[in-house]
């Protein structure tokens, strides 16, 4: 931990796909135990931002620091970085050929080299904590979307990451399944997990986030407490976005 307690810092991060510039200079500082929600329209760069932090995408310019270590310099061990950063995807991305338990223990046994018995005991405890104990030996396709996403969260948590990135984790779920996943994330927030959450769930952002960042066209246009962003947005684009969300009945 460095002196200012910064868990994650982005400086001028830029990323293009072909001629499309998706991130156009993003600066962001996330403190220890902070929950930062990224909101913004589809295509505003939320997912790309998270994938860059996990080094799933190589950035074109700028720097990213994890606990003060620059993770975007040349020659950095990407696998070592990813061990410290958990990510959960919109489409769960569970391994369909493995049972729930195997999904959760794959990385702890193969990357952290935990003895199998120990890894399985830990995984079982985590699954129990998130109400999935009886699904331990099921295959992902037999679970509901909400259960699958909770398994994906457990899989990332099993690595005991310093930081969790959640990429629209409820967007692929039926409305009645959203709640169970959000409850898991709330519980994580209460345990002090540092999280960056890209989401369309505005009420979740309002209740749980320490800070809300509004992304627009590859930049963080405005950030502040949920209170500030949702009740007194400064930027016209933010107001416009929120009005549309309200009109859609999602706030």
């Amino acid at each position, binding site marked *: 931990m460095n002196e200012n307690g910064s868990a994650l810092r982005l400086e001028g991060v830029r990323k293009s796909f072909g001629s499309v510039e998706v991130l156009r200079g993003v600066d962001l500082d996330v403190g220890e135990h902070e929950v930062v929600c990224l909101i913004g329209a589809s295509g505003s760069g939320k997912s790309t931002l998270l994938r860059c932090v*996990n080094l*799933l995408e190589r950035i074109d310019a700028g720097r990213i620091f994890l606990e003060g270590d620059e993770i975007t310099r040349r020659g950095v061990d990407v*696998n070592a970085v990813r061990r410290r950063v958990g990510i959960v*995807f919109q489409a769960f991305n569970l391994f369909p*050929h493995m049972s729930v338990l195997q999904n959760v223990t*794959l*990385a702890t046994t*193969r990357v952290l080299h935990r003895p199998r018995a120990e890894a399985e005991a830990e995984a079982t405890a985590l699954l129990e904590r998130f109400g999935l104990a009886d699904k331990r030996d099921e*295959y992902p396709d*037999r679970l509901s979307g909400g259960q699958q996403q909770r398994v994906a969260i457990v899989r990332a948590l099993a690595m005991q990451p310093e930081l969790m990135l959640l990429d629209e984790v409820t967007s692929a779920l039926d409305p009645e399944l959203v709640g169970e996943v959000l409850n898991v994330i709330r519980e994580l927030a209460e345990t002090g997990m540092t999280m960056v959450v890209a989401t369309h769930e505005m009420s979740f952002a309002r209740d749980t986030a320490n800070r809300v960042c509004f992304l627009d066209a590859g930049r963080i246009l405005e950030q502040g407490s949920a209170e500030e962003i949702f009740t007194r947005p400064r930027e016209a684009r933010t107001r416009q976005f929120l009005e549309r969300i309200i009109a859609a009945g999602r706030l």
Partner: protein
Amino acid sequence: MFFAIVVFVIVNSAGWPAVRKAFFDRKLFVDSFPEIAHAFLLNIRIFCIAEALILVFALGIAILRGLPGPVLFPFRLLAVLYTDLFRGIPTILVIYILGFGAPALQLSGVPNSPLFWGVTALVLVYSAYVAEVYRAGIESVHPSQEAASRSLGLSRAQTLRYVIVPQAVRRVIPPLLNDFIGLQKDSALVALIGPIEAFRQSQIDVAATFNYTPYMVTALLFILATIPLARLTDWLVARDRRRQSAGGQL
């Protein structure tokens, strides 16, 4: 129904009595069976050894072909050239070239037996086909699977081994089996450079008796050999489906 008509037409054709005598002689069938069955053990040895080697070798080729980045381009090129070459030449030519050419080089430490070179030729040819089957399987695994695996800190090699290849192999089991049945039948081609396997043995028997019944024996043996493999695949596919999917009839 169609089958019944064909049988009816054949059995009532003018030449049927002669054909029946030449191809379906019961006594000859029983007499030639043990010898041909014994020779067929060689076929089984050939294709079992070849299949085991192909499974590994072809996967290596497919993985080489999928390597990323400009630095590894030579390896990709090598894999492409290999596949083009050995898929392009008729199997029988590869067997001839290796079977007669390789021993003539008189390399020390390399076996000279035609059997060795016959199996080698089959492995080389069928690996080219099977590598493409593997490649199709590997490419059918969604990139999000790789992302999920890498995001957990698994290396590229670990991702291939634990996430990509297991899913790819499950998906290509049926076409893989298809190639293996082809291989089992092509084990008869090794006879052309010397070894006496079932087909060669039946040729010898036919030449001695002027009756084609031994060919029917051989045909029957080949069919019998492919059935276990076919049922094994069905079982493997059904097992995966049962385990992984939500159940219920579609």
